[in-house]
């Protein structure tokens, strides 16, 4: 698991970074006409260099991106970029409130946790909200997706506090008009004390009032906003009970068709087309990692769902290598989770090898693990 800028491990921050990174990789690949692996390297370098996703996506890192592309054949990719930052980044720092820095820090010292690095990049902007008429339906989708984002991000913290049982019980079931609102009607400046009252206003914009409609609601969002299918699918996965798995079949079927027909969405299609089962998709997405002990909980949940998937689709024979140890566990034999992980890892590696063998000419051997060695030059 990667570390954030402060060196702490935060799974939900990782998920947020994952979403941001995918968008940036796609942007760089499309706008600069480079391959995905190079776009991915550049994205990592920029994010590690302290640029945020919005800055990159707004084209404010054009100079840096072009520089990195020009030097992409170098092994010391990050070192080069750090040297580059040393020369030019200071010019980009914007301090619109520089003169007031000293007095401000006195007032805020007791209430802020700031780092020297962040302070040097701080940007202050007058907070002067204005009223704007917006399309209700569009706003509803924006709000829904933002809460879905937070639900995925917040899940990790939520899970740690209340346990796995809570996760199983979470569903998109309650009507949004009871919970979803926005700060829209407060007269004049903000009144934070009345936040909750304001939030209750301007609702009934997006109706998801029955559990049975959950998947179709998500499908509609994905249909309207296919670029967010990762987010929606991940949310559906985390929030649906296993008996809704049949809906996932519908979503996958739809996605494969939709994405396959839209060349502009090739990156998303690449991620979903090789996933024959949902667990594979989750691993592809990085939400389940058999090599990461911290993600075993997610794997266990996924296995529970996968079991239903197998049974409902008569797939036990197709995936016997993986299914057998699970069934032994299920009967109370309590096989160690490591054995289950090992079985699935083998199953997954076999799938991976089969997939790699079909696209061997497009795969960069430098990105492969030792497990892939037999496929490339008999290493």
């Amino acid at each position: 698991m990667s570390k954030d800028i402060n060196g702490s491990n935060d799974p939900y921050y990782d998920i947020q970074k994952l979403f941001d990174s995918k968008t940036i990789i796609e942007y760089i690949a499309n706008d600069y006409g480079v391959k995905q692996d190079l776009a991915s390297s550049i994205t990592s370098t920029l994010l590690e260099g302290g640029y945020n996703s919005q800055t990159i996506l707004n084209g404010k890192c054009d100079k840096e991106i072009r520089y990195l592309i020009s030097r992409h054949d170098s092994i010391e990719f990050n070192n080069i970029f750090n040297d580059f930052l040393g020369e030019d980044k200071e010019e980009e720092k914007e301090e619109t409130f520089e003169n007031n820095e000293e007095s401000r820090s006195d007032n805020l010292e007791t209430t802020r946790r700031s780092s020297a690095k962040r302070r040097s990049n701080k940007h202050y902007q007058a907070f002067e909200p204005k009223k704007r008429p917006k399309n209700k339906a569009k706003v509803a989708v924006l709000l829904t997706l933002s809460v879905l984002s937070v639900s995925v991000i917040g899940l990790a913290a939520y899970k740690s506090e209340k346990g796995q049982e809570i996760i199983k019980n979470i569903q998109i079931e309650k009507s949004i008009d009871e919970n979803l609102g926005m700060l829209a009607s407060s007269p004049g400046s903000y009144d934070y004390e009345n936040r909750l009252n304001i939030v209750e206003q301007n609702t009934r914009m997006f109706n998801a009032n029955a559990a049975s409609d959950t998947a179709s609601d998500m499908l509609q969002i994905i249909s309207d906003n296919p670029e967010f299918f990762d987010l929606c699918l991940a949310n559906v996965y985390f929030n649906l009970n296993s008996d809704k798995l049949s809906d996932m079949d519908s979503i996958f079927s739809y996605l494969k068709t939709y994405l396959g027909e839209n060349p502009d969405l090739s990156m998303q299609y690449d991620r979903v087309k090789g996933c024959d089962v949902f667990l594979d998709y989750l691993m592809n997405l990085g939400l389940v990692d058999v090599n990461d002990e911290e993600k075993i909980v997610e794997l266990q949940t996924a296995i529970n769902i996968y079991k239903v998937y197998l049974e409902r689709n008569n797939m036990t024979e197709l995936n016997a290598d993986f299914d057998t140890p699970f069934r032994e566990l299920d009967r109370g034999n309590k096989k160690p989770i490591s054995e289950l992980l090992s079985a699935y890892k083998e199953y997954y590696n076999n799938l991976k090898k089969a997939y790699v063998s079909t696209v061997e000419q497009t795969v960069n051997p430098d990105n492969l693990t030792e497990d892939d060695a037999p496929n490339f030059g008999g290493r």
Partner: protein
Amino acid sequence: MIDVNVITLEDNREYIIVDAIEHDNNKYVVLVNEDDKGIFLIRRIEVIDNKEYLTRLDSTLEFDSVAKIYFENHKGMIDNEEK
């Protein structure tokens, strides 16, 4: 149509303010942009010379803390525990 509160950030793009949160003696706003569906921003409000300013958060820990509160505030829409 519906009237919403918006703010234009340093990237010259307009963001809809979907929530305001108080945490650890600080005030925050949660922002979404029409062109970046599914992505939200959190900015801290600081009062300087009796005027409010938006600024970025200091750390991912601060982001996580506020995001968690936002999630808690709205988790009812995805949580059927109370049903």
